[in-house]
């Protein structure tokens, strides 16, 4: 029978690093959206069946299962549908806490995406608040949502709850 020799520490943990390399493509539809961001514009795509505008589109209308072929340029403005205030630090965080993350529904879009809200204290962000995108300087634009520095209030009156309730 074997036993640990004097002085040997019993092994309880095994380290097995895994490193895998990939060549990643976001696909055709998302490339359209990302290339738009690199030009400082929001490009959505319309479903030919239901007419809804998706931004970003992953290539299909999730409801109808058909390609969203028609590209639609959307404005920089929209509303906060809902939000949370981030108070927790975590790896990869780009902004000093506390800050506000909101679901932003661009005017003309039928789906919201998450955006940072700045130039307003966290406790003054509201559901229905009108916001506009602030882009990074032109030389920093790239194919990523990081091209949108943040959204800020436009000062317009809030949207009525009924106008965005279906997007919650």
């Amino acid at each position, binding site marked *: 029978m074997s036993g640990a020799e004097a002085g040997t520490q019993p092994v309880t943990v095994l380290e097995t690093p*895994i490193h*895998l390399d990939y060549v990643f493509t976001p*696909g055709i539809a*998302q490339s359209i959206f990302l290339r738009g961001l690199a030009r400082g514009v929001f490009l959505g795509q319309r479903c030919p069946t239901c007419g809804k505008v998706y931004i970003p589109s992953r290539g299909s209308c999730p409801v109808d*299962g*058909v390609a969203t072929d028609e590209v639609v340029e959307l404005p920089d403005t929209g509303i906060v549908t809902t939000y949370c205030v981030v108070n927790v630090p975590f790896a990869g965080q780009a902004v000093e806490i506390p800050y506000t993350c909101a679901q932003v529904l661009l005017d003309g879009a039928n789906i919201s995406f998450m955006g940072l809200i700045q130039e307003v204290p966290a406790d003054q962000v509201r559901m229905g608040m009108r916001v506009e995108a602030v882009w990074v300087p032109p030389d920093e634009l790239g194919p990523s949502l990081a091209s949108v520095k943040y959204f800020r209030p436009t000062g317009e009156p809030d949207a009525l709850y009924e106008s965005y309730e279906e997007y919650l």
Partner: protein
Amino acid sequence: MSAPARRPVAVVSFAQARNVRREASRNEVELLMPVVSEVFAAIGASKDDMGFICSGSTDYLVGGPFSFVTALDAVGVWPPRAESHVEMDGAFALYEAWVLMQEGAIDAALVYSFGRSSPGDVTEILALQLDPYVTAPLWPSPVALAALQAQALIDAGEATEEELAEVAARNRSAARANPNAQVVSDASPEELLADEYVVAPLRRHALPPITDGAAAIVLAAGEKAREWRERPAWITGIDHRIETHALGCRDLTRSPSTALAAERAGLFEGPPVDLAEVHAPFAHQELIVRRALELGDAVTVNPSGGALAANPVMSAGLIRIGEAAARIWAAESERAVAHATSGPCLQQNLVCVLDASDGAVVGGGA
């Protein structure tokens, strides 16, 4: 043994993406969407007819979690559907759908699978299937392990390198007739033997290609099947079995799990099959599976070219079932067997018996 009678369920539609070495532009949703669209269009069905949806895929091919979640957008599951996913080849997703259909409440189901092997190094990725403590840290590729198996077969006097070349030559020549095949060749076995070894005794030709692909099947029960397909491919039996994971505890020259699954699927009862689509990514594995399925010389094996002509990981097994069913629809086969495998050296195997007649449906179970 006699298994209880089963509800007749048939493969009525099948579509696959053209198998390619590298699908560089489209993401998984974009790859899958036309396949799903085609599998419905071929029979005039729609997603609204489907009582259940089941898919098979693995996150490690794309290198991110939850790849099946976004892939579902290729179908459009609205209104909500009964839907599930297996981290297995699509052939196993088909099995789950078949099981649910046995209970009688579901008359039609969509099954699909997808996977791009090109974004990463699939030989490194598949090493992560091995036990993570003592085997995966050695990073043996599936080729290295298959080569051990091939050498064991050669040592046992049950195969020669020439026979492996013959298998490869026949599959890739047959693939000429398959518009979706990736690797076709008219090279003779003698010419193939000039290939270099990748991991000896396996030469280049005995290996599967690296393939990006996707596939979809529609299953239908009873009258629904006859409505959609004049000559449905009835699943008269389907079963799958697994072996131990430790290679050193297995006889690598045999596939007892294939043989047992075949028995439970009723393959050895009734008339012999005339056609087989076997999922043998490496040439010598076709010899092992043929023996386990007791396929005689009269059986046409892999008219599609099999996994040696195109091996989209996670779809190659489901495609075998689709290819076999298509032969029955076309009256090129009366009774066929399809086989899917998973894991190193044929660790896990599924056998599906398809018949032009919905007679005695047997198989499955203990």
